[in-house]
């Protein structure tokens, strides 16, 4: 039996995504049908993976990770370049993006490692884990693909957190982040003044953060998309403009309106109430995932389920934060909402893992064998 609440929530998101992709993709021939096909693909993968046992997943963790790193290496050497980034590998029949694979392979690998050591107990084991985390991240960062690098890095970091990362470190980092964000809000104008260089960051990265603080710095350039996206969200109001009625969406003011910025289209047409619904669905999925993790019978599946749940959160939060103008623009899709096959497969795979772990949990709860691995 698959986990009922999780599946229901998934279908809730999928239903909303069909509505909004139909609307936002109205001008694109066949986009809606492609989206349906992608959703179906995601579901099939999810369903298939759900019936793979965590034990078998544990076995593929290392080969998958090694394959991922090799592919990233291949990309760095002989990848296709598009829009200034080298992210794709042409394998004859189709182009694949190995960094996507890493989003799953990374938590699998680290969960395997922690499980193998039965918890990270000494500095050597931590260093090995850190190395496994940093190598693929560095490759992806070099492509450059900040969004994916961040997601991969975060997915690994979640595993390490659940594996017992020092609370002190967690709070120091969280505290520093909070202080940094507050500082940026207060002193944003000063540090974004012309000619101020930020140590350790490239000019375009500084620009991206500064555009976030004040999109009007560059209203027709980089700021344009975020301004129009925020206008779309804000003009949705409480009830939204209605399905198929979003002017910002249908008049091409929203960039990437069926992919990374689909939430702007959704928000414009369904308003605050629609947003609350979607937020509730995601919160439900994530909390259900964490609940599955807590009840998981093995260290491996616990870490994996926790990391995957938080990865879903990571996608959703970063995407919605970016679209509403509180986070910098990075290429992160909204889980199961955004049009696009790759993320569907990745996230379907992740959800499948959660469902697979949930199955072992239900066995546990019902008092069946607790296997000692």
């Amino acid at each position, binding site marked *: 039996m698959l986990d009922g609440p999780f599946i229901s929530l998934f279908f809730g998101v999928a239903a909303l995504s069909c509505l909004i992709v139909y609307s936002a993709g109205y001008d694109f021939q066949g986009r809606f049908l492609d989206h349906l096909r992608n959703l179906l693909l995601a579901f099939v993968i999810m369903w298939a993976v759900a019936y793979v046992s965590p034990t078998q997943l544990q076995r593929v963790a290392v080969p998958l990770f090694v394959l991922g790193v090799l592919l990233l290496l291949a990309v760095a050497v002989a990848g296709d370049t598009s829009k200034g980034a080298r992210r794709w590998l042409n394998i004859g029949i189709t182009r694949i993006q190995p960094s996507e694979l890493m989003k799953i392979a990374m938590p699998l690998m680290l969960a395997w490692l922690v499980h193998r050591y039965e918890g990270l107990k000494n500095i050597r084991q931590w260093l090995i884990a850190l190395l496994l985390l940093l190598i693929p991240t560095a490759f992806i960062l070099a492509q450059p693909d900040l969004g994916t690098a961040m997601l991969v890095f975060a997915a690994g970091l979640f595993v390490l957190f659940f594996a017992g990362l020092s609370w002190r470190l967690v709070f120091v980092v969280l505290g520093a982040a909070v202080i940094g964000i507050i500082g940026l809000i207060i002193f944003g104008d000063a540090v974004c003044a012309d000619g101020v260089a930020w140590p350790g960051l490239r000019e375009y990265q500084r620009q991206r953060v500064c555009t976030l603080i004040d999109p009007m710095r560059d209203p027709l350039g980089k700021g344009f998309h975020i301004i129009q996206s925020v206008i*779309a969200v804000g003009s949705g109001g409480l009830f939204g403009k209605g399905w198929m009625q979003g002017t910002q969406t249908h*008049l091409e*003011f929203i960039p990437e309106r069926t992919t990374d910025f689909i939430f702007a289209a959704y928000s414009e047409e369904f*308003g605050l109430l629609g*947003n609350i619904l979607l*937020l509730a669905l995601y*919160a439900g999925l994530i909390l259900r995932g964490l609940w599955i*993790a807590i009840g998981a019978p093995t260290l491996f599946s616990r870490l994996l389920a926790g990391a995957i749940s938080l990865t879903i*959160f990571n996608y959703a939060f970063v995407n919605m934060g970016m679209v509403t103008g509180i986070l910098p623009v990075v290429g992160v899709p909204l889980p199961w909402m955004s049009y696009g096959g790759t993320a569907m497969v990745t996230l379907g795979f992740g959800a499948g893992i959660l469902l697979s772990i949930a199955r072992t949990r239900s066995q546990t709860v019902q008092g069946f064998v607790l296997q000692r691995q």
Partner: protein
Amino acid sequence: MNDFRSNTSSDFRVRASFMALLVLVLFGVLLLRFAYLQIWRYFDFHALSEDNRVALLPVQAPRGEIFDRHGQIIARNTSAFALEIEPHKVPDLEETLAFLGTLIKIDELDLRRFRRLKGELRRFDSIPLRPIMNDAEVAKVVVHLHRLPGVSVNVRSIRFYPHNDSSSHLLGHIGRISKSDRERLEQTDQASSYFGTSHIGKLGLEQSYEAELRGRTGFDRMEITAGGRMVRSLERRLPIPGKNLRLSIDGELQRTIEQAYGNRRGALVALEPSTGEVLAYVSMPNFNPALFIDGIDAATWDSLNNSPDKPLLNRPLRGTYPPGSTYKPFMAIAALESGKRKPEDTINDPGYFMFGNHRFRDSNPNGNGIVDLKKSIVVSSDTYYYILARDMGVDLIHEYIRPWGFGQKTGIDLIGEASGILPSSKWKEERFKQPWLPGENMSIGIGQGYNSFSILQLANATATLANRGVMMRPRIVQSIDDPNTGLVKKTEPEIVRTLPVSQQALDLVIDAMVEVNKSGTGARVFAGAPYSVAGKTGTAQVVSIGQNEKYNAARVAERFRDHSLYVAFAPAEQPKVAVALIVENGGFGAAAAAPIARQVFDHVLLKKPGANSGR
């Protein structure tokens, strides 16, 4: 169970719960952000998204057309291809201009006008480089448009005056709305009426009836994409065409008179006495009003503006002249009405009049002998009027002449009328801070001296005389026709005042004026006319109307010649038309001016009215 599992399991539970909390907190932040944007800032963003998607495209209203009394069109609209540039969209203006120059001929004149308009117009206006292009030129430009951002070929409605120079001062012209026009419109709160229009009436009827001719600009509220592509029209307000003017002017008469003037300078106004309708309004030389529509080039402007012939001067309205002997009928009535003369009072006219040591010469050096009031008009005896003026004095003259409208605006429906000067001792005191001298009375009496009237005033006074003392307001527009509703708003004849003159005095003076054309100064001109004409010739010594004429030896002699004037109405018994005209430096009144008046009478009285109507 072992210790390791239960320990880490409880630690994991804590960490998972912590993360669940973090998730909820961060989602809470998102929720606050949504609420901020979608509730707190909703109205701002709603307005912005509306602004975003909607562009107002003005649809120009066709300007009202102008017809003459027979329905012949004298100002209409036509369309033409215009090459226009929106400078703010052009990356390199000089390069674009140079490239366009290789495609079609763009001369200095076009470039100068373009640069001038670029300085004057609003930043987002499109500025004409070539206001009118032929088909071949359009084709040449259009194939290159894709590499010329900011350049467009637009069909534009342009004002067209089918009779070219004819009636130019009457019609005036339209022109680009200038900075000062815009300031004025903004001050009078009319700026919104000019949204989407680029032209405004500048002079003449185009200016005076601007509000009627203009119409109302329509618009298309278009939904547009971020890229500026039109999606669909949300709302359309059709433009309301301007109203048409039907003039009392007889276009063919206008052209006949203009031809009669040839290259002489002068002004003529012909009125229908019973209604005040203006039948002819001529100012010579004239100019082509089309030159001004998109801004005249400097060289042409200079040649018009600096010409000693003053082609830009609206003579009937703004040119003021001493009336000369055409003043005498009005003086005669003043004499009778003031009781200073009886018809049978006579004087001896030896050819001059001595006032103190000063000899006032008569135009007839041999004198006219014994002269009574009637003869004083027929033979135009200056001496009679020297003595009359001495006896009346300037202020009594002023009192009896003023009701005829001299020295005042007539109230014609054209902007910019000059009032002229009808002197009085008070006037002189105010103007020159000097008392009136008795020696100045004499020249006043023969229509010289400080007297300075417009031809329009003179025509109006003549029509009032023909109308036996009833003064009508002169009107050029007979009706304002609304093409939208079919409504025709007729201009009703308007009585300005009825002069308290006795019929006896009128009979006497009109009788004398008829005699002028039978046996007097106008006899030769009107020989054989099948209608009776009451008229009076005049010859006025030159008081140049302009102060800064350039010295030109060949022309100076001519410029010193007297102005030739004539006032008349016909038929004398039942006047249908009254006319006043001047031929500048034309010499003796009967020689130059009266023959033109005859053409007016022949045209109006002998041709069947409406015979030339239609197109």
